[in-house]
């Protein structure tokens, strides 16, 4: 068992012939993900690497291959359109890796996707992986091991760091999810925590947050009220100066609500074990399990 992706995931790749799309498609196939189709307008009919059928439109791809999830690697200027198209074609899961999408695009994409009942992960995220079952996105498969810890993170490489710590110390993962660092994203901490709480294959959850916004505080409230499984948390950005922008559009501190100190306090108050540094994840997990 796992969360959001598993052996039943039949993946479509939007932007399969692009630089990033082709590279990561090969990585996903090598990992064992069932990549059933690709989409690049104008390249329909020319199989990718001779094996994955490519279509002009998502609707065509879904009709022909019964794909039930899609991952988007198209350039930022086309990404909103790709998400609309995926939702229109009835995709249940849409994972958008693309970074640099204007926030105002997302103000319209999000209700559209929501109205059609799709789950969007991202944008500007590394995707997700259920080790040995399905890898959707760019999380390096070799750092993950199958196991019973769920991981959810707003960050990319910081996630790899912590997952690496877990795997190296015998804690495999049920699913690792990078929800993305943009201000407007489709799936937040609470959606993931609630899925992990319901997943019988997950025993504990690691939450990796950062400065900016109040998602972590809301996650803390959810953990306190709705979770029985142990949760370990980390917040990046303790040394970030207030009010300065730190790469992620999400990392603008507004008032005091977005500081690392406040988020760590909210975590602690909700019974989440708070790491001081990434390497703390292993001892804290041992303590709680």
């Amino acid at each position, binding site marked *: 068992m796992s969360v959001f992706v598993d052996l039943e995931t039949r993946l479509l790749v939007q932007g399969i012939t692009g*630089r*990033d799309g082709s590279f990561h498609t090969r990585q996903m196939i090598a990992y064992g993900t069932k990549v059933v189709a690709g989409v690049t307008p104008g390249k329909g009919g020319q199989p990718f690497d001779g094996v994955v059928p490519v279509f002009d439109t998502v609707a065509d791809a879904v009709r022909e291959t019964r794909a039930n999830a899609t991952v988007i690697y198209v350039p*930022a*200027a086309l990404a909103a359109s790709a998400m609309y198209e995926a939702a229109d074609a009835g995709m249940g899961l849409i994972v958008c890796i693309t*970074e*640099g*999408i*204007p*926030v*105002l695009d*997302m*103000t*319209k994409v*999000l*209700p559209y996707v929501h109205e059609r009942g799709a789950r969007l992960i991202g944008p500007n995220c*590394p995707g997700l992986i259920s080790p040995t079952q399905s890898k959707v996105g*760019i*999380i*390096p498969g070799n*750092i993950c091991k199958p196991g019973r810890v769920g991981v959810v*993170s*707003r*960050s*990319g*490489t*910081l*996630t*790899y*760091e912590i997952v*690496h710590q877990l795997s190296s110390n015998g804690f495999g993962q049920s699913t690792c999810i990078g929800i993305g*660092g943009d*201000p*407007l994203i489709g799936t937040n901490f609470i959606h993931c925590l609630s899925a992990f709480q319901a997943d019988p294959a997950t025993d504990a959850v690691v939450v*990796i947050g*950062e*400065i900016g*916004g*109040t*998602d972590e505080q809301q996650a803390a409230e959810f953990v306190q009220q709705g979770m029985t499984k142990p949760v370990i948390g*980390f917040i*990046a*950005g*303790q*040394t*970030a*100066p207030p009010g*300065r*922008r*730190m*790469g*992620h*559009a*999400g*990392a603008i501190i507004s*008032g005091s609500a977005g500081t*690392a100190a406040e988020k760590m306090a909210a975590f602690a108050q909700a019974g989440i074990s708070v790491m*001081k*540094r*990434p*390497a703390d994840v292993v001892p804290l997990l041992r303590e709680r399990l």
Partner: protein
Amino acid sequence: MNLHEYQARDILKRHGIPVPDGDVAQTPAEAQTIAQRLGGKVVVKAQVHAGGRGKAGGVKLAAQPDEAAAHASRILGMTIKGLTVQKVLVAPATDIASESYVGIIVDRGSQRPVLMVSDAGGIDIEEVARATPERIYRLAIDPRYGLLPHQGLGLALRLYRDLAQARSAAAIMANLYAAFYAVGASLAEINPLVVTPDGRVLALDAKIVIDDNELGRHPEIAALRDTSAEAPSEVQAREAGLTFVKLDGSVGCCVNGAGLAMATMDLVKYYGGAPANFLDIGGSSNPQKVVDALRIITADPHVKAILFNIFGGITRGDDVANGIVQATRQFPLAVPLVIRLTGTNEAEAVKILTQAGFSALTDMDEAVRQAVARAAT
């Protein structure tokens, strides 16, 4: 990207929002000419990306054109919050009967643009939000429908009892919302929105921040960038495709990914050091980016050691290694370099670094400890 007041005013004007006349000057003579054309009392305002211009002496009233020139000559070249004033706006001094605030930002919680208005305009709105939150009215706008007329009027009636003034304010809100989407803003505010003694509603000062991700499709907005108003290292970093923020410490940091970069800085502090910067080389790295990053970091004389922390995903370790090697060939490093590198193409990377005489660590804590120690000596 921040716009100057005069640029924001132009955008508002193009979207049908009444703003007072006025123009921008780069010399006292230009300021004098503008004041002459406007006639009467004028205000001379420093154009810098910083709040509190008035308190800093960057906003002055002038009764005569030559007084405007005198003010301009004092304000031009002045430093406000570390930024040098290069331009002043010269505008008619407007008589004011009342001041309000109108602003739009995108709210993470509702995932919608939020229109905020307050009858406590003309002052720091964040202070109003803290001290008297009940004087701020908010409305999350459904972008599928836009700002509907009754919504704008409903908010405007909170600001003005007079129906004609409320209708003017509602029209300004509708136009501000249209401008917000049209230019790709992440913040657009009018503060103050004033009523003149004869009952006209005017945008007296405006602030617009553009979402950097929008600049690609708005070249006319991107062209408004005033690099002379930004820190040179940040300009250099942006042009190299890097995200860089200058800090006060001695450990220069070069990391892939914003989250890991922040966690690295935190760990520097955890082990008793102080980060000299935030620097994210981003995902699709190439050797040149690493060269540029090292050039920017080494330009800071406070940097005593440089720490690379790379966890390869999209970023390929060999690209980073090649960049380090190329950089050190182009310019010798005066400070020690500590490299932590793992993930994609780690083996090739270690080989490249070893051949060039560098060693690479795989453990983050160990690398940070070493960098802090080297910076301290």
